[in-house]
């Protein structure tokens, strides 16, 4: 159904995109003030000590030499070693631990968004202007308007501090020591057959996923509703009904697939902003994903981590877009052209 050529063409497009991002990140980091050698050396180091480090890291070389070296290593997936956050550890190694953490939370958040957003949107469309419609619309508007750094602490305050139903932060209770296999903790705990640990992980993940999912739920339900309303009013839908195609629910089946196209776009774009939202959610919930990693790396000037993380973000974003396009062509084969 989906031609190989299409996928290959899109994959090849990755090259200029990633090259552009790499160049951009490199330029930003090296043009902004702050000396990585000073970062490594710390407040107590003498100037001589800083100079030694600068030489050893090759920071005295001309900028294009450094740039060439960075690109040459980056294409081999070598982003260097962390200066500060995980001192001396290869960036790829650091990302290997942090990436699954963010992906797990983003995927659960997105699941929340889809599973709650689509039915809410459909409900609104089918029973337009009914009470349920108003409720979901107000809910959606609130969801879009409330920033994570406000909803997060609020949710913690209510469910963790006051009610005590869920843990306030982290991914699993500290008594469990789970060897990371995939890094996706709900998965790892299941593989290791430790059900108590799985339960703990699930309880820990619920609030952050919910918080990160609220925004996408709101957006999806709004998009689903308006798109569905539009489709319902199309001629072919009226024709179908005129032909006596049964109840509204049956009609839904015809309309749904067509109404889904803009929703898939939103889901795709949303996944990108979920990664952005992860920065806030992870900070609020004390979760060690690439969101907090990136923020911290920028704060302390850990250039290799910043470069590696931004490139990873760019890669993920383009991959999700590719998936969205593939889904399009599945939903509507004309798009492939």
């Amino acid at each position, binding site marked *: 159904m989906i031609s190989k050529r299409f996928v290959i063409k899109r994959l090849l497009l990755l090259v200029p995109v990633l090259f552009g991002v790499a160049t951009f990140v490199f330029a930003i980091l090296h043009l*902004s*003030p*702050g*000396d990585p050698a*000073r*970062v*490594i*050396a*710390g*407040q*107590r*180091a*003498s100037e001589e*000590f800083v100079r*030694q*480090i600068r030489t*050893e*890291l090759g920071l005295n070389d001309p900028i294009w030499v450094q740039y060439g070296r960075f690109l040459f290593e980056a294409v081999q997936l070598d982003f260097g070693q962390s200066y*500060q*956050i*995980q*001192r*001396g550890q290869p960036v790829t190694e*650091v990302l290997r*631990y*942090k990436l*699954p*953490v963010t992906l797990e939370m983003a995927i659960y958040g997105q699941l929340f968004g889809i599973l709650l957003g689509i039915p809410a949107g459909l409900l609104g469309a089918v029973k337009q202007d009914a009470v349920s419609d108003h409720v979901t619309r107000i809910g959606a508007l609130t969801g879009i308007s409330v920033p994570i750094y406000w909803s997060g*602490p609020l949710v*913690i*305050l209510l469910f*963790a*501090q006051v009610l*005590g139903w869920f*843990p*306030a*932060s*982290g*991914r*699993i*209770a*500290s*008594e469990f*020591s*789970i*060897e*990371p296999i995939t*890094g996706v*903790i709900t998965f790892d705990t299941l593989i290791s057959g430790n059900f108590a640990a799985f339960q703990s992980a699930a309880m820990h993940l619920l609030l952050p996923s919910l918080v990160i999912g609220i925004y996408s739920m709101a957006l999806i339900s709004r998009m689903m509703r308006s798109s569905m309303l539009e489709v319902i009013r199309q001629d072919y839908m009226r024709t179908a009904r005129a032909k006596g195609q049964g109840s509204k629910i049956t009609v839904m089946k015809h309309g749904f697939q067509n109404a889904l196209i803009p929703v898939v776009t939103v889901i795709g774009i949303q996944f990108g902003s979920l990664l952005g939202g992860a920065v806030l959610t992870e*900070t*609020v*919930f*004390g979760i*060690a994903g690439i969101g*907090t990693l990136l923020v*911290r790396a*920028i*704060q*302390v*000037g850990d250039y290799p981590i910043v470069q590696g993380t931004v490139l990873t973000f760019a890669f993920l974003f383009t991959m999700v877009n590719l998936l969205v396009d593939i889904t399009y062509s599945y939903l509507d084969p004309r798009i492939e052209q």
Partner: protein
Amino acid sequence: MTSNDTSVSRRSLLKAAGGAAASASVAGYVGTGSMDDVQDQEGGTVTYARGNDSGTLDPQNTTSGEDVKVINQMYDTLIDFEPNQTSLQAGLATEYSLDGTTATLTLREGVQFHNGEEFTASDFIATYRRFTDSDYQYYPGDEYISAYGPFTLGNWVESVEPGGAAGGGAGTTAGGTETDGGTTTEAAMVDQETTTGTGTETAAGTTTAAEDGTETAAGGTETVTPTEGDDQYGLTIELSQQYAPFLRNLAMFASSVLSRQAIQEYGTDLNQNPVGTGAFQFENWDQGNQRIRLSANGDYWGEGPFVDEVVFTAIGQNTSRAQTLVSGGADIIDGLGAQSSQIVDNSDATELIRTQGINIGYMAFNMARFEPFRDRRVRQAISYAVDTEAIVNTIFQGIAVQASQPIPEQVLGYNEELDPYPHDPEQAQSLLDEAGYGDGFEFELATFQNPRTYNPSPIQAAQTVRSNLDEVGISVTVNQQPFNPFLEYTSQGQHDACFLGWMTDNGDPDNFYYALLHPGIDVEDVPEGQDWVSFDTEGFNTTNRAAWANTEFMEVVEEGQGTLDEDQRAELYREAGQIAHDEAPWVFIDHAEELRGVANRIGNFQIAPISGPLLKRVRIQG
């Protein structure tokens, strides 16, 4: 020996810590009695939550306080700080003394590293060389070694040799026979090039040692051949000059004793594979959960630990961390601000504990760059004009006290007679008039953006300074930057004035006075009639952000550095404090408090501003 006997003798040993070498040999037996320790422990897991995960587990690889918290649990130093004090007590050395330029230490016998190796003098020698000697075979490289290498040891130590005047008592038990493995390999052991073992290893060791020897002819450690077995329980450290803070430097985390065998085995991977002698040993580091798990060291030589496990976890946001504590997800938390400490204080399940930290927050006048600051009256005027009381009480919300001098009161030589400059705009104005700046002037105040312990709200503090100085006709532009670019900017002397602060390394007054206010050059090199030097002066100490070079002050501080008698030293630093107060190279702002949130089930937790957290003493109650 019954288990009862053992625990009693262990305690009495601790009471007599720093006592006779004879009791050290008792420790040699007792430390290995691991069965008894299990009875001491009440068990359980203590979870310690902080703001960030560790970056490394190697004490020689870091300057970050976050890393040190975990390192302190796993590693010991030769000398310890007394809990919550700046005074010293015995650590891995039972006796220590500094006489002239020679430090002599008697090492505790029968102490085991977590890898099962016994602790001897050669471990410390290997530790020292790995930290400071770039010719050493196992030197991990300049970009790996932290600035503490030269700062605490390298700049002062001339040589480290096994053996010493004390000698650890003649022919004590465990030492000589258990670890030495014969006199032929002993030389190699001291050279740290090989472990005892097969002939080939030893041969390889000697050749490297020879090469090493030629490279570093000056380093006495290469060529020493111990004659007695008990030399492995003594250390003689020769300093390049009389340096009073040295014993405190040995008590710093950066001087933690590494295992010689681990140094050889792991190289730079030691930052993921810590091997110390501490009360807790490393279990695992789950980076996806920012969680470091340590377990009780059953063979620990000192008192404790009383729990089975310690877990360090990281929660970035202060309020989330406090809520985690309150809802039972953590037992001890640090890094509390005003809002988060409220959460802890308001809960029935937790307690907020506080103590004054050993730090200073200040605003430095850059005399090298900004001419009006070269006039003492201008500096005093600004000190009067800035309302530090309001900054401490309102902006820092009372989590700090006003400062009157560079050191807080716990530090030796604190001058009780000095009071903070009061907020007095009129006095300020008349001083400015006197100095010829009655119409005011403009300057730039550089500050970092994010909170630091000694300055929890830098931006608001800067705004307060601006509005205070506006009242006396001085116009301030605030230049805010992230911390690292800020450090670079100010270390190059590009600021007119800047906020900064300091958390002590070793609790010694020299660590404030010399480190922060001495220009690092000779008194004779200060230009005549000038009490500042430029930032590009050869050998200038850039940590002195005021570029202050008051020769009277410099002489007092240098004398303090070389004076071994504590009373005499204290008197000198009181004088230094008086000069600094009067000359006002800084606006002395605050000494920040240390706050911790502790769950009610945790007993015996005490804040240790220098070498904490003291988790080996913690118990879980009920």
